[in-house]
């Protein structure tokens, strides 16, 4: 059923008239044209489509747009602040923590959710909270290091 849905996307308010059952991923990628959020599996199994809704990582491929109503959605395009890369983005670059880069936006946003709650996670805590994000190129070891580096920088900034 078509409904008008308002939400904040990367700090800008949006109003869309659409079928409220449609998934957030496709609304972002097609209706809005923000393609940084990736399709990987369509069933919330790989995490490539992870975005933040009210600062919490969600799997946008299974997340109905109606649930984003009046909430704050942040995608990879909205993570940098006034052209300043987020510490996670910088740390991924510094650690070469990616290869093909297709899973990277989801990895970064999922890690954001972890660091928000715990800026100094242990290796085990990172592994636990990232375990449902898949990287076929096998960059896990470097992503773990990048998340730790970013956590330290974020803590220092506070």
């Amino acid at each position, binding site marked *: 059923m078509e409904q008008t849905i308002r939400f904040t996307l990367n700090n800008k308010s949006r109003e869309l008239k659409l079928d409220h059952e449609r998934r957030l991923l*496709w609304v972002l*990628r097609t209706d809005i044209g923000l393609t*940084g959020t990736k399709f990987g599996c369509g069933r919330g199994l790989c995490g490539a489509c992870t975005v933040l809704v009210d600062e919490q990582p969600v799997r946008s491929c299974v997340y109905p747009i109606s649930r984003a109503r009046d909430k704050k959605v942040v995608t990879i395009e909205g993570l940098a602040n006034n052209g300043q890369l987020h510490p996670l983005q910088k740390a991924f670059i510094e650690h070469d923590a*990616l290869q093909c880069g297709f899973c990277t936006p989801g990895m970064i946003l999922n890690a954001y959710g972890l660091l928000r709650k715990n800026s100094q996670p242990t290796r085990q805590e990172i592994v636990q909270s*990232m375990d449902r994000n898949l990287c076929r190129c096998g960059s896990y070891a470097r992503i*773990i290091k990048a998340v730790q580096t970013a956590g330290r920088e974020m803590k220092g900034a506070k």
Partner: protein
Amino acid sequence: MLEDEYPDLDFIDIPTPSAMDRGEFLKLFGGGIFVLFTIGSPFTLKGQIGGGSRLPTDFNAFLRIGEDGKVTGFTGKIEMGQGVVTSLAQMLADELDVPLESVELIMGDTDLCPWDMGTWGSMTTRFFGPPFRNAAAEAKAVLLELAAEDLKLPISRLNVDAGVVFDKRNRKKQVTYAQLAKGKKIEKHIEQQPPVKNFSEFKLVNKPVLRRDAPEKVTGRAKFAGDIRLPGMLYARILRPPAHGAKLTSVDTSAVKDIKEAQVVRDGDLVAVLHKYPDVADKAIAKVKAKYDTPAMDVDDKTIFKHLLSAAKEEEIVASGGNLSEGRKASDSVFEEEYLNSYVAHATIETHTATAQIEEGRITVWASTQSPFGLKDEIAEELGMPSKDVRVITPYVGGGFGGKARNQQGVEAARLTKLTGKPVQVAWTRAEEFFYDSFRPAAVVKITSGITKSGKIALWDYGVYFAGDRGSEHFYDIPHHRTMAHGSGWQGGSGAHPFGTGPWRAPANNTNTFARESQMDIMASEAGMDPLEFRLKNLKNKKMRGVLEAAAKKFNWTPSKAPSGRGYGLACGTDSGTYVAHMAEVKVDKKSGKVLVKRVVCAQDMGLVINPEGAKLQVEGCITMGLGYALTEEVHFKGGEIYDRNFDTYEIPRFSWTPEIETVLIEAEDSPPQGGGEPAIVCMGGLIANAIFDATGARLYQLPMTPERIKDALQRD
């Protein structure tokens, strides 16, 4: 560099190379200095052209120095994560003496780039690298000539730094590349190879450089084939059969009209629904009612091995020496074993995707492909169009591993844009990706080997079925040996596989190295010897000894007969001219059959390393990805029906599997650069099988080594 230093290649042949007309090309880019490369050296050809292909008749343009001093390198290679976007730029910048930042690459665009066979086989650095560096050296020679004229000095007085040519005696007397290229239109062809820099002259090559594509990839700016947006573009969902071999007998698309703005396209067997939103196209395709005639096939993931053994008609000798019956006589113990591995999927996170557009009769396709020129020709052929009317552009590719050497989605997108006249995107669902993947073939290896009382290998009779022969030839010091390849290679042959198979990262070599290195450990254990000591006793190859010794040092390997209970394993192998040795420590939970790989050390000799950081990243990627085929990855099927359709049942490695990884790159700057994208994955099966044996005394003969198979082996042994 000697041709002999490269192993024989066995790759898909793409028959019709084409390049844009030279005049058109130069017009497109305006002024500057161009160095064009016409293929001349048979040595270069060996890597670039598959057997039987025709050669490009015009030219291959490799680089341009623009009027702004920027250097543009053109290559038909593509970037799929392996990192050549960085290492090729390093080679170019170093040879030209310009800052890395002033180099850009145009990759995988069939209108702009020189014809290329495809990005696979760890060949970019080995075979494309040398002519690319030659072109840069030639460009530098041209620039020096121009500078000598400009500065009225002999070339011998000149030096270059960061794109500035200056007088060695007076640095203030200088001219930049940009100034030299300004207003010029110079075409140079390489006829003889100019001298390139030697090791001591490198400023960027052999230095660790971070990925140049990372800033785009961490911000979401990087474009993949599915990120192309065109005005009026429609997303297609295509009707798919329930099983390979199924024939469409009836189709009813009438219910699609319930979906607003959905458009049905039917062309022969192609039935598609198009919509401006992909998720709505999904709903619409579900409304299509179709009936299929599905042939009954009994073969499944358990019976496939027996089937393959009976389907192997042809055979060839890969290598042989001595006399097998002599070898048998000389052996005090003989071991006859059989090794199996299942079908494995590529499972890239980006599914096969293509966006196509037709304008004035010319089709442009942005595709996730490892072979843009191959796709261009496939489209031209399928659509009955002249090849010049098809352009393939390759944005970043979200993982390939051999799977994106197949381009079905690109042809589908091109057909649909031609049929509708509108831009169309075809992005496979995960289920389509699993269904149409060209799996690594299931395969069997049979080995009969023998040793003397003193632990010398006297006999080696090796036969591989359907994996392919890459990596099948042993490198040990064995007097009586024969290596046979039975059945077809990884592309499959008629009657072999119920679905498509193809190259999968280091094709054939994963299967062959698993079998060979398992057999080595079986013999070592029987001889009562430490597995490293046993290998070194039977090995003369210097590079292989070098990596084994380097790995042992890093790992701190201490000799012991297996099973020692420590859970230590080792394996070594060679691929794409590179030598690797791995050592690992694993923990096996005997109750659940689960394996935890705690630590992996890899020593790699890849000749001159262009980008040590990129090379290490590839080693780590190989090790991590290789855990999957070693432990869990296996396609379940019955006949042409594929049961695994997503990451719930098809388990690929995760964060929690990640071992501590340590990489040693052997300093071998005097040897030409070899492959880096594949070698370090070949040992993973044998490595972990040997470590499991060392931990438990149970020997695994089948990949993947699932908890069930490990429990079975524990009971048996």
